[in-house]
């Protein structure tokens, strides 16, 4: 295939990706250094009220946005350097909190709070997803052929349904006197309200994520299990390996590339955790990095969006993605050079 045909085939896709992925990235990067603000003017306003014997007049200075000819508010764009980053990170407060070893104070700053939650969430759910997925895959592989289809069908449900709705469906089980709360209260014989404090919401969010992603891990591992070399298994058995040893020394090494694959996908996806915050309405207690940017982008009560702060927090989020991707890219680069691809 010569390069002209190749360009014709790939062109539209590349064009879309450049226009809607690469260009926004650059513009976010630039936006984070600039601040768009309405221009304010200070005017002297004299208000008079009828009084006796003369009018009472008060003169006060007011700041108000200048309206342009078209009736819209005039805005200026100003270069502010790292100001927006400073507003997001609040380095002074953060540093003071760090020096005093006061983690609680550090976590009152939105960005650090979001970072703490995002990282805990990612790292706690990762082993759980792999473990649960692997366990289901191995048991399904052991089960009789007839029930495998229905089990795969049921397992796909949590993975396919809309994430926000999935989170909501779990929330409705626990909300108020929902049946799960009622059950837990009966079981533990104490009062429980799952949505009154942060850590219980966090637990529910992690539970939801494992519930949502484990089916994906299961399906991938299950496909991998079909390709395990039966001869190796048999010879391991002849050598007297127990069931557990066969799993540990034959099956898991065979699945290792898939485990790495699932981990990578899961790291990327759970670093972007967002839908859980919406579904569980946890913004008062727990927020994530992506939610922070989303919150800056949502218009506030006066209809303003803090674009520059959103851009700064987006760029800071990107740093994490880069850290995640560098090892992967280095490995791909080495494979490519070695001609393995």
């Amino acid at each position, binding site marked *: 295939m010569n390069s002209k*045909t190749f360009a014709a085939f790939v062109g539209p896709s590349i064009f879309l990706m450049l226009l809607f992925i690469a260009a926004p990235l650059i513009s976010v990067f630039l936006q984070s250094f600039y601040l768009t603000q309405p221009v304010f003017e200070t005017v002297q306003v004299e208000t008079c009220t009828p009084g006796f014997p003369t009018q009472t007049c008060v003169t006060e200075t007011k700041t108000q946005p200048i309206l342009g000819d078209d009736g819209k508010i005039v805005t200026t764009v100003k270069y502010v350097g790292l100001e927006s980053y400073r507003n997001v990170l609040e380095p002074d407060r953060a540093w003071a909190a760090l020096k005093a070893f006061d983690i609680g104070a550090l976590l009152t700053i939105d960005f650090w709070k979001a970072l703490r939650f995002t990282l805990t969430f990612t790292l706690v759910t990762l082993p759980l997803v792999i473990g649960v997925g692997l366990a289901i895959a191995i048991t399904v592989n052991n089960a009789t052929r007839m029930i495998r289809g229905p*089990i795969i069908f049921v397992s796909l449900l949590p993975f*396919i349904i809309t994430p926000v709705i999935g989170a909501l469906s779990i929330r409705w089980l626990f909300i108020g006197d929902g049946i799960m709360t009622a059950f837990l209260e009966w079981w533990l014989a104490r009062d429980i309200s799952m949505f009154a404090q942060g850590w219980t919401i966090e637990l529910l969010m992690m539970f939801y994520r494992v519930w949502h992603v484990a089916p994906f891990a299961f399906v991938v591992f299950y496909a991998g299990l079909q390709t395990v070399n039966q001869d190796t298994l048999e010879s391991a058995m002849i050598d007297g390996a127990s069931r557990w040893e066969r799993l540990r020394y034959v099956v898991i090494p065979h699945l290792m590339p898939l485990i790495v694959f699932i981990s990578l996908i899961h790291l990327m996806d759970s670093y972007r955790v967002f839908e859980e915050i919406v579904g569980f309405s946890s913004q008062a207690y727990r927020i994530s990095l992506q939610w922070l940017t989303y919150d800056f982008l949502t218009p506030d009560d006066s209809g303003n969006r803090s674009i520059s702060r*959103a851009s700064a927090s987006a760029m800071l989020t990107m740093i994490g993605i880069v850290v995640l991707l560098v090892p992967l890219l280095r490995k791909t680069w080495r494979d490519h050079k070695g001609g393995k691809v």
Partner: protein
Amino acid sequence: MSLPKSMQQPMALRVSSAGFLAFWCLLASFPIFWIAVMSFKDPVDAFAANPLDVIFGPETVATGRGLSIVSILVGMVALWYTFRLATTTLPRLVKQYSPPHLIVPGWIIGALVFALGFLIVFAGLLPPLLGAVNSVLGPLGKPILGLTTEHYSAVWFENAFYENFINSLVITVGVVTVSLTVGTLAGYGLARSGSSLAFWILIIALIFRALPHSVLVAGYLPPFINSAELLRPILGDAAPTLYGQPWAVIAVLVSINQPFTIWMLRSFFQNIPNELDEAARVDGCTHFQAFRWVIMPVMWPGVITTGLFSFLLAYNDYLVCSLLLDAQNQTMVPAIAGYFNRETTTTDQVEAVAAAVSIIAPLFLLIMIFQRQIVSGLTAGAVKG
């Protein structure tokens, strides 16, 4: 079983693994099953602390809305036949009546006709019929299982949820068609070109896949809001404001989805032997002709699978739609967030549940019909590397 004795599993292992599987199936389906049950009940029943109250709905029955034993039996028989029809007759009819190269439209039409028939039978035909039968039967015709569809009618008609549904429909159909058209071409090109440029395009696409969507939306918002002014020098007075336009959201979702699409389609195209298009080329086809007449007829399994995942992305999206569309003109998923945020009375809450169930019902059908394609899509990227 023909397994040798040494290969057979000990009893304890069999029991515990069966128990684990049963537990997992319960865990996977319970929340979804439960909200489906809740959505048909009176608010008092739906949020009752006793699970039996939620299932049987005494309050709902007390107001005379419910199913009798006869209705339940008839309903189950009808459901069983629907299931049989969907799994055996429908695929056969689609295969029979649609020409091979139009299998996808054939399936879409088949599914729509099926859904329409389902609605007519279960919402239009059965209730009056069973109502008449129940009134004759006496004690057997008394309602025992509370069931009311009033929340659904409140959501869909009074609160105009169908407008959100139409928005969702426009956006999903747009995203699936555009992203498949663009993605198939690119996937084919990438699969057939061994150049190192193709390799780098794929790697960059992989990086793009990892980007959080909020980062990208932060880049779209200012230009989209001001696009009328930005584009005026080029387009004149016809320059549109992109913010709030469904087709702008389609373009954004297609692009966000593009990295995933081309990776997946590329791996499907690599499985189609190269000799096939070489043969066509020897016979004098250009690359495009070879693609059109030789590859397109055999590429449908891969395209359907990728289309399913594009569909899911567009259908399930919350972040992009909620930021780039007006609050008054939302798709279904962001619209429901508005529901449960304003939930003040318990009736509002049950209506939110009904809206949620309405959103996931099509997905349920989707897994039923396309389970095999979904599984092959999930494993395509992973197993082949």
